[in-house]
């Protein structure tokens, strides 16, 4: 296997480790409530927040 192939696979492995870290962070118990918050807040987003649009 040449150096380009080793580099290619090395990047793959590095990205896999990053992905595993994201999964671990997302699914840790302490993050549970915060991780699910956006799905509730998006249900009521049809009006912008006050003072956000001085031109209106």
């Amino acid at each position: 296997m040449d150096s380009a192939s080793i580099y290619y696979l090395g990047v793959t492995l590095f990205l896999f480790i990053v992905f595993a870290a994201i999964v671990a962070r997302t699914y840790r118990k302490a993050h549970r409530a915060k991780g699910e918050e956006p799905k509730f807040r998006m249900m009521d987003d049809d009006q912008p927040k006050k003072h956000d649009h001085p031109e209106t």
Partner: protein
Amino acid sequence: MNQQDGYADDIVKGFVIWSMVWGLVAVLLGVFISFQIAFPQLNFPPYLTYGRLRPIHTNAGIFGWGIGSFMAFFIYITQRLTRTSLWSPALAKAQLWLFNVVIALAAVTLAMGMNRSKEYAELEWPVASLVVVLWVIFAVNIVMTIVKRREEQMYISLWYILATLVGVAVLYLVNNASIPVSLTKSYSAYAGANDANVQWWYGHNAVAMVLTTPPLAIFYYFLPKATGVPIYSHRMGVVAFWSLIFMYLWTGAHHLLWAPVPDWVQTLAMGFSVMLIAPSWAAVFNGYFSMNGQWHQMRENYLVKFLIFGITFYGMQTLQGPSQSIRTFSAFIHFTDWVPGHVHMGTLGWVSLVLFAAIYYTVPRLYHTEVYSIPMANMHFWLVLTGQLIFSITMWIAGVQQAAMLNATNPDGSLHYSFIETLAELYPYWYMRAAGGVIYLAGLLLFLYNIYKTITVGKAQAAVQPA
């Protein structure tokens, strides 16, 4: 800017209307070229031949209808999920003009035969350069809106939107790198197997970043809005997102199985393609689980029908795609009619059903009215579903038959059928494919009429309301 809501929604109206125009062009051309296949005498050289109309069909469909709608809904969704107005409505207006100029230029140049001969990257360098300008304008506006957001945590749709913006930019710049020799002709910056590898890295990730991540962003936003119930799991959405992004990067070479690219690259592409089933089906399950206790809405809420059938086709597509990446199956169905069947299940089934739902949801809100006719919307659903199924199923059957005939050998190893014999057997399927296209077109016309009436009624109501 829509003064009542504080969001820049006028530009969304513009993109929705123009994307529908290009969508109609795409389907009209699609139906016409399907008839050209069944009746070759309908080819009128040099401009109205299958070879020139087919890339216009794909560009109008993927970029005119698809990207046009995505631009509309990215602007619509981003403002709401960040609870802030668009960073620059003026830039978005310029984006709308440039978008239409680019799509029109694409149609004209492709009809004139100016073509880089790269799948989904056909546009010659002057038009391709305009696409880059267009994308930069779009990306800057959306990213700046997200930067000044009022919500700390980003909802999953925003992740998909950002991935689309970054992904398309990287793919497009790398694969469109070319050496111009005149205003209308250029040569790829790569050669041989490298060129093929870059092209299919682009080609497959265009499916990821244009036909998967944007509809998912839209699906994740509009399903909860349509049902009135939050999605099942936001965290599952986030993990599926990152998983999808990582895996898609390596799958392009599955288009080059049995080609002169390194064997381990092919195997890696095949492995990651099969692994892609997991994140794809995580999104499908997220959609299905969101319907827990809400399945009655499939009967009562026409929007849910579009969205759930859309995600179902996504699920079927993401089982079929990885299966096709396996060497033996790929060798069987490659270069057969199976492939257009697969592609159209994705574009007509997954992408378009989700976009129809999003347009039905947003247009009445943008014009402060109700949808003109729900029975008409239901009829639209059944027509496009029937048309799409006829198209895909006939092409799958045709593909298997074609593959079987092309692979059949005599005891001495010679081919059992000549190529022309395999073609002759396909005509009945091509007639059915054209009929499926006509049914889909009928559904689309009903949809356009319904939206047109919704808009005109909305405008009439606004005109009679006291200021």
